[in-house]
């Protein structure tokens, strides 16, 4: 057998916690060859990070302990090396480098980036100061940071998230490692920045022949970049194979489930998302049987009686750990392909007209106003009763500011917001109260948004009491139980505290709370982005079902365009406080008009390597500028490939391009203008 660059065999890592022994990594095997991009996919807590950290003995010991296995790197077993010893340290950062998830916290804030890069260089290459500096400059160039000379003296705070991640990559590449491990390296970044960083990593692999392991929960990312894939679930590798095999003929029920649970940008909207029911298994609760058993549709007698299924080969590269071999793909049959019901839309419920929200900036001792941060600049669109409008944009584009304005949580600077024809921005405090019943909201963070000291029942029922919507104790109990049922949480759990629920359940409680007052409009601010992939589909399906039953109107805010497309009737795209495009959902993917929308769409990978190969990609440069240095004229002009002189001078208005499809651009590519 040919020797692999890194070959991990039967790795086992446990954590001794007070409550239980957590088998975080349970008999995991994988390998990587030089110049290969391998991806490890799995949900939060599935043991992806711990596997990698274990290989380098970087897990915290105690409570962690590596209880078995081998990690052969160039023939040498890394797990046999002395912890903290010279030899191990030469491998760490020298031959194997890691890039971590949080670019904001992974660099030392009190040392210059130059220091931090040069430290790696001198440590592993034994360079002197001058040579190290030269090498650091070379590295900055490699990762696409201009003005290296000057930037070396910068501190991490002076860089944006994307730039910091580039610095991390420069640091990781300092010693020309044989293997680069990127642990959720782009998860915290904006969609367009994520694309740039991953492209950069792939270019590095091609240029230098370094092997790359991408750890991620995002299947779509994998489809675009990986050669081979390992799928992890609750500490086990459940399936392995090439990207093509994995996406065209997924074998493990979990892999199949995941692929059916995520909406695709190019997907058929009538395809219902098939959620994987239940929660990911907590590795502390493993019982030696197949970890997917409690959620598996195909589970049979054998699965209940036999121990953990071993990895069986299906082909030279494809393998699955399942007693049923590769169960016949049942997903298609299971999801009844209901034609999307024609929605009956009512009158305009909410209309947002030329809304501006400026935050003044004061400077100096006299607190003189020096500028405005234009968080919202001339935002106009409307929602009709029963409609779902998706609002997308990268971080800082003003999505949450807009949500707050609609909820009357702050005053707007200019413009009007009409709810059922009434301007709600000029209401008195006591007139806002009844409005709160009609407009409700669901937050992003299911952990922070529920009061930790209240029981689930009183969190959901509070609104009923406050607004006197029930007249008796019995009615209150009945309504709360009904709300619990509506969102799929057992009403018997109403006396539990929020921390006793999982993230998905909490989000359901958040939805129940929002529904308590029978609102007309529900504003969902990134309601699923904090949840696991397999849970996201459950929540989306729930929201769609509730809309059908109750005729709700949604403003659905998210940064994930594929999810937005799936749930929305119309989509509003924002960039730096301005609406750049409003489009019916079908046209958004087929005929995006604004250059930004095009770039955004092309940055989003589609979970299918075949499609990915055929897809053209829009060139795209730079990162979202800060609101403080907002470009003049068209806000997008400094990143736009089509810009002309006029774009720097004039602000394009949102104009109808036919069929209710609006865009704000002077030069709609290939378009009429």
């Amino acid at each position, binding site marked *: 057998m040919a020797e692999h660059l890194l070959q991990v065999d039967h790795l086992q890592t446990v954590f001794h916690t007070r409550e239980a022994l957590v088998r975080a990594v349970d008999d995991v095997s994988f390998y990587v060859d030089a110049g290969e991009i391998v991806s490890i996919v799995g949900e939060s807590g599935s043991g992806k990070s711990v596997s990698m950290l274990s290989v380098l003995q970087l897990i915290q010991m105690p409570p962690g302990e590596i209880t078995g296995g081998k990690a052969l790197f160039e023939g040498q077993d890394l797990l046999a090396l002395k912890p903290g010893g010279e030899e191990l340290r030469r*491998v760490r950062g020298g031959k194997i480098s*890691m890039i971590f998830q949080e670019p904001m916290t992974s660099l030392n804030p009190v040392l210059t980036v130059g220091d931090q890069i040069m430290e*790696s260089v001198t*440590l592993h290459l034994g360079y002197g100061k001058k040579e190290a500096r030269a090498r650091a400059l070379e590295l900055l160039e490699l990762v696409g940071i201009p003005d290296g000379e000057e930037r070396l003296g910068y501190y991490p705070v002076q860089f944006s998230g994307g730039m910091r991640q580039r610095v991390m990559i420069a640091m990781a590449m300092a010693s020309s490692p044989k293997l680069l491990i990127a642990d959720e390296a782009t998860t915290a970044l904006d969609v367009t920045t994520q694309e740039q960083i991953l492209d950069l990593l792939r270019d590095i692999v091609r240029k230098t022949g370094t092997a790359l392991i991408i750890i991620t929960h995002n299947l779509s990312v994998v489809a675009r970049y990986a050669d081979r894939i390992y799928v992890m679930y609750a500490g086990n590798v459940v399936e392995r194979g090439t990207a093509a095999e994995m996406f065209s003929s997924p074998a493990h029920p979990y892999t199949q489930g995941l692929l059916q649970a995520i909406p695709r940008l190019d997907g058929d909207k009538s395809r219902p998302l098939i959620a994987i029911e239940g929660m990911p298994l907590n590795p502390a609760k493993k019982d030696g049987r197949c970890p997917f058993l409690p959620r598996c549709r195909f589970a049979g007698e054998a699965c209940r009686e036999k121990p953990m299924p071993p990895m069986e080969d299906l082909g030279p590269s494809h393998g699955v750990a399942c007693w049923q071999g590769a169960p016949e793909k049942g997903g298609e049959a299971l999801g009844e392909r209901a034609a999307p019901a024609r929605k009956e839309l009512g009158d305009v419920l909410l209309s947002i007209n030329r809304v501006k929200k400026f935050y003044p900036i004061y400077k100096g001792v006299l607190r003189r106003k020096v500028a405005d941060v234009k968080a919202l600049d001339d935002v106009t669109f409307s929602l009709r009763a029963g409609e779902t409008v998706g609002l997308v944009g990268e971080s800082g584009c003003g999505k949450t500011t807009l949500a707050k304005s609609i909820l009357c949580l702050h005053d707007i600077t200019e413009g009007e917001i009409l709810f059922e024809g009434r301007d709600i921005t000029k209401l008195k405090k006591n007139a806002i109260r009844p409005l709160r019943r009609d407009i409700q909201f669901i937050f992003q963070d299911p952990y922070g948004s529920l009061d930790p000291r209240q029981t689930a029942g009183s969190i959901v029922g509070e609104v009923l009491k406050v607004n006197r919507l029930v007249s008796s104790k019995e009615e209150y109990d009945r309504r709360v139980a009904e709300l619990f049922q509506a969102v799929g949480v057992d009403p018997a759990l109403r006396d539990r505290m929020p921390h006793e629920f999982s993230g998905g359940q909490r989000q359901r409680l958040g939805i129940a709370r929002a529904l308590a007052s029978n609102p007309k409009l529900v504003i969902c601010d990134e309601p699923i982005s904090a949840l696991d992939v397999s849970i996201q589909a459950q929540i989306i399906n729930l929201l769609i079902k509730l809309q059908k039953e109750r005729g709700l109107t949604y403003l659905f805010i998210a940064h994930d365009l594929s999810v937005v497309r799936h749930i929305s009737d119309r989509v509003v795209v924002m960039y730096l406080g301005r609406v750049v495009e409003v489009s019916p959902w079908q046209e958004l993917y087929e005929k995006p008009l604004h250059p930004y929308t095009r770039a955004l769409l092309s940055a989003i990978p589609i979970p299918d390597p075949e499609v990915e190969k055929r897809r053209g990609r829009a060139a795209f440069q730079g990162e979202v500028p800060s609101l403080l240095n907002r470009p003049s004229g068209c806000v997008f002009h400094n990143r736009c490939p089509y810009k002309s002189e006029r774009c720097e001078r004039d602000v394009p208005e949102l104009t109808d391009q036919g069929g209710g499809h609006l865009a704000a651009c002077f030069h709609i590519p290939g378009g009429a203008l």
Partner: protein
Amino acid sequence: MYKYIGKRILQMFLALFLISVFVFALLQMIPGDPVYAMLGDEISIERHDQVYKEMRLDRPLPEQYAMWVKGFLQGNMGYSFSYRKPVVELVAARLPATMYLGVLSSLVSVALGVLFGAVTAVKRGTWIDNVVTVISNIGLATPIFWLGILLVLVFSLKLGWLPSNGFVFPWEDFSLSVKQTIMPVICMSIGGVASYTRQTRSSMLEVIRQDYIRTARSKGLPEGRVIWKHALKNALIPILTLIAVTLRNTIAGAAVVENVFNINGMGSLMVQCITKRDFQLVQACILLLSAVTCVCNLLVDIAYAYVDPRIRLK
């Protein structure tokens, strides 16, 4: 950076101005005639009037204040009636000893505290951690006065190793100076060592969990470099804040320690002048000590900006 320092200096002068107004008002608040209050009732009327004029008590208040500040800046800090000497002479004789002890014990506190804190954090959960933690808890709870007496009892009276009182500077008599300063410095720094240890330990534990420490380890740095270069500099940021707080305690401690060990410093001077109602002396002492504290705080702020680029770059 310069803007930041400039702003801090301005703030310091503002603080000093307010303190000086307050200290000046102190004299105004004494009930009855200030001259009698200071010199006692037995003096003659002529003497009273003369002193009254000398002290410019017949002028309007703002003018009195202006003259007082002007005098102060020119080194005329008033006259101490209990010592029958110009205040300036007294202060010049006593301030150096206190400053010497204060600076020395501050250095000892920071050095030992940070060292102990870092070690206990790294060796968390081991016996070293437990022992040091217990000791520092005791240190925090020990009254200085009691500790001073205990030390004198053991090391001077019983064992006869160290002199029980007195103070000379090391450049006057090095070995005597060392012997004389050991016990006062222990007393003055024990609380500081304990609180720096605790603060360093907890901020180190916080820092060690941070992502950038994991990054440093994954680079293959030796553990020592990870701790001393990457962790400690970050952990020091909250400790700087503590320095400003501890300074006040050190000055308060000086008053007790100088009395116990019979050292002629500012602390003992203050205690004496307060008991003797020597108000001009009290005024001068408070103002001087406030000035010293303000300057130290300024230095801490500058150090802050030096350590933390997030402040410097604002």
